[in-house]
């Protein structure tokens, strides 16, 4: 898996200045201030600067991603659990608090772009017309906590074949109507447990759990399972993502 060198985010938010981005930048400033005061020798080591140390850390993240891609076995399944193991209450997680959850836009359609033959948009009903798969798997957050949840939906490999995607492309990118985005490698996208989830705990997804359709990928850390999808792109250009652009390890396989 070869990937273009990542763009180190500039100090000004890369997208339009939304309140969330502004809040993040403020937090980062505070963080930088805190490290300046203490480990003075090691400033420029938090992935936000153009220092040599940060460049080395980004390079190590890239190297690490190659190792992770090599360790990835496309056939190895994530452990599945009985219904009794499901974590309740299930923890909400997003880059914003739960009261900022976005409602599904009217006339929502899932767009499919990039290296695909059929770019017609998808409604929920049309997605439900495809074969469905259920799973009870562990969602592991990059922060370390984990919880077991139940999802069902369309296997992504099936969907990608259905839309005539170029399966030799490097990346599958996801954008969400809540401003989030992420991307995964094609091998992980084709993993048998990677699904476009429509249901959570046997009910249609509600907005906080990613309505109307979300990615659920148990072979990646939780932040890769993007909620509230609005489009899927198949591409050979490194797409990055909301957290990846700030320094979260891109491959983030588990």
């Amino acid at each position: 898996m070869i990937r273009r060198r990542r763009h180190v985010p500039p100090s000004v938010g890369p997208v339009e200045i939304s309140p969330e981005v502004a809040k993040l930048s403020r937090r980062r400033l505070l963080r930088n201030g805190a490290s300046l005061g203490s480990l003075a020798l090691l400033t420029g080591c938090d992935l936000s600067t153009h220092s040599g140390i940060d460049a080395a850390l980004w390079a190590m993240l890239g190297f690490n991603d190659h190792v992770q891609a090599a360790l990835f076995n496309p056939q190895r399944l994530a452990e599945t659990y009985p219904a009794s193991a499901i974590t309740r209450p299930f923890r909400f997680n997003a880059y914003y608090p739960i009261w900022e959850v976005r409602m599904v836009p009217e006339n929502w359609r899932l767009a499919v772009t990039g290296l695909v033959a059929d770019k017609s948009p998808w409604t929920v009903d049309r997605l439900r017309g495809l074969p469905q798969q259920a799973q009870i798997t562990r969602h592991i957050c990059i922060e370390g906590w984990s919880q077991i949840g139940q999802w069902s939906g369309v296997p992504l490999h099936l969907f990608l074949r259905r839309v005539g995607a170029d399966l030799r492309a490097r990346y599958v990118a996801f954008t969400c109507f809540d401003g989030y985005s992420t991307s995964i490698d094609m091998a992980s996208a084709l993993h048998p447990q990677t699904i476009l989830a429509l249901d959570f705990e046997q009910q249609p997804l509600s907005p906080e759990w990613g309505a109307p359709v979300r990615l659920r990928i148990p072979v990646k850390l939780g932040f890769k399972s993007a909620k509230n999808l609005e489009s899927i792109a198949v591409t050979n250009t490194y797409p990055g993502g909301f957290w990846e652009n700030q320094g979260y390890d891109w491959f983030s396989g588990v």
Partner: protein
Amino acid sequence: MDQVQALRRSAHPLPIRIMHWIGATAIICMFLSGWAIYNASPSLPFTFPPGLTLGGWLAAGIAWHISMMWVLFADGLAYLAYGTISGHFWRDLRPSGPRALVRDLGDALRFRLPHRIGHYNAVQRLLYTGVILCICVAVLTGLSIWKPVQLGWLAGLFGGYPLARHIHLAMMFCIIAFLAVHLLLVAIYPRTLVSMVASTKAEVDR
């Protein structure tokens, strides 16, 4: 035994001294970056002072952790290979019997245990063997929580992802406890620090 040989040999051969300092640096960086990761979702009712962490926030902490991980991994493998092949483990670190341990521990607690450079008493053997095992378990649990699916068998060995994560944290505390004793003893016997830097002959029985 081997007093003549002891007169000639170095207290700490050069490879040991090099690997000690590379390993020490790597482990300190693993602590500091690990604390940045821990702080993102503390599993105990406290966090580490952000100023004491490496990276300052989760992503940078992880970047440091998985960078220094390779240094520790390479240094650790080289050390385990050297320690086994050179006989260092068998000669110096092999645990002595319980009787010697009780005797040396009693002396140590009354600050009457003589410290001879280049020789390992029962307490030192126990501590060094213990910390090497703790570091090995820390590395193995670290691999388990890095790759709980791809290395599912390893995570299973430690009782699954959540337990492996707790053991990983527990190993950190064990290594810190070792470090506290280790640094205290270096402060009491500063010439041991010299012997881990410069070439120093092993001491003979007094």
